[in-house]
């Protein structure tokens, strides 16, 4: 999947939630949620990945699937508290589609390939970087959170155990995570600026991703299908 052109990945991730809201509930939402959750199982392992008990090729997909489930679950809970069962199912499936599409996109879309694709298509580098930085924020924050947790474990603060323990650990994680992220923004801005991000010159694509005719046709087809479904629903 990650070999697809970045615009194709974006198109799929945008089309699924669009269909989920356009198509009649609950069948439409169920179909899109199943497809989106199925997609979350597709991210393959990067070279060098290892895991215990599971083949490296499967593990990233399972992690992505689990992440989508964990994010979507609270929405179902709140929907059930506020609505009856049919509404909960209809809205829950749509939200699950949105969540799973986003989680899948973050897992399969390399920010550098997106920048290259956008620059090759004539977008300004600053705009392309904004998109890519948003996508790369999740893994960067995850890595930093892991480092902070490890550092705090060394000082005797365990993130496991009772609810009170976990809450204490969460509080001790949140503050340094947010503050370090904010602090890093300043330095990263300076570093990117000195490396020509704001120069206004058109960047030379280093390895623009191949955009096959079939993929371009598929993207346009998705767009037309969305429009057709919308028109049919409104008619």
């Amino acid at each position, binding site marked *: 999947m990650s070999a697809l052109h970045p615009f194709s990945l974006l198109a799929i991730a945008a089309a699924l939630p669009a269909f989920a809201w356009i198509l009649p509930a609950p069948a439409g939402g169920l179909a899109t949620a199943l497809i989106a959750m199925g997609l979350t199982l597709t991210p393959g392992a990067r070279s060098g990945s290892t895991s215990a008990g599971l083949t490296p090729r499967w593990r990233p997909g399972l992690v992505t699937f689990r992440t989508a489930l964990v994010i979507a679950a609270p929405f179902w809970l709140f929907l059930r508290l506020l609505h009856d069962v049919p509404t909960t199912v209809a809205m829950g499936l749509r939200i699950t589609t949105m969540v799973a599409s986003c989680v899948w996109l973050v897992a399969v879309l390399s920010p550098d390939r997106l920048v290259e694709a956008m620059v090759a298509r004539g977008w300004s580098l600053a705009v392309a970087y904004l998109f890519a930085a948003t996508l790369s924020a999740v893994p960067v924050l995850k890595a930093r959170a892991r480092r902070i947790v490890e550092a705090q474990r060394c000082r005797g603060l365990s993130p496991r155990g009772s609810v009170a323990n976990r809450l204490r650990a969460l509080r001790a994680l949140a503050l340094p995570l947010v503050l370090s992220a904010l602090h890093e923004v300043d330095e990263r801005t300076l*570093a990117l600026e000195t490396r020509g991000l704001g120069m206004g010159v058109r960047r030379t694509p280093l390895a623009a991703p191949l955009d096959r005719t079939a993929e371009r046709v598929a993207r346009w087809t998705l767009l037309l299908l969305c429009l057709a479904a919308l028109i049919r629903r409104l008619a």
Partner: protein
Amino acid sequence: MRILGLDGVTFWYPATANPALENVSLDVGPGEIVALVGRGGAGASTLLLIAAGLAPRVTGGRLAGSVSRGARAGIVLPTPWTQVSGMAFTVWDEVAFGAANLGWPGHEITRHVDRALERLEIAPLASRDPATLSGGELQRVIIAGILAMDPDLVVLDEPTAELDHEGTRAVWRLVRSLAAEGKAVLLATSDVDALPDIADRIAWLEQGSVRALGEPSLLAGDAMCEAGLGTTVAGLWRAAGLGAPYPLTVVDAVQRWR
């Protein structure tokens, strides 16, 4: 001819009443290496940001006085992990990030990137993921990324902070070779013992002002030794109660001793 000229520069960061730099004047010519020395908070990093054209343009704040910069500048900041583009999965791409942003043709980018990798002695790392590098390796990658942009003014803020002894020596050799090519180098470092062999001039910063500007022999002066900013040899000589002028380097000390 000068590549960088600061005339009576005073700089305030946003929402601060006291200037971080006050009435600083400094020139750097082609092929010249000027080193800034001072205690923490003396204003060296701020001066480097101004020299690189990032303050006040990016940092905000207010600048009085005049800054003239005749060429493109590139700055290396002290913490390498905040300087990675985040857009590259190989060291080669990371080094090429800045050069590609200049809009150069592909073959020019390749030439500059390969040369920068060779100069920093990191060519074997070209296909590695930057996220897997040590701090020292990453610092060399960042320096290579700036050199690949072929700046005429190279600004280095504590460039050896993350490096081991070998890496430090390699960077100082590189700095000398950059100057030999005619590039201007402005750097701040706490590795004052290296400066007699590297720097052409020393600027001693204190509380945002240039207290002294001159040849590296300043580092063996009584005032700098008293401030704890002289070379180790000069400091030891002074602490031992031996007479001034103090030797600047071990070689000087040996000659004096004989």
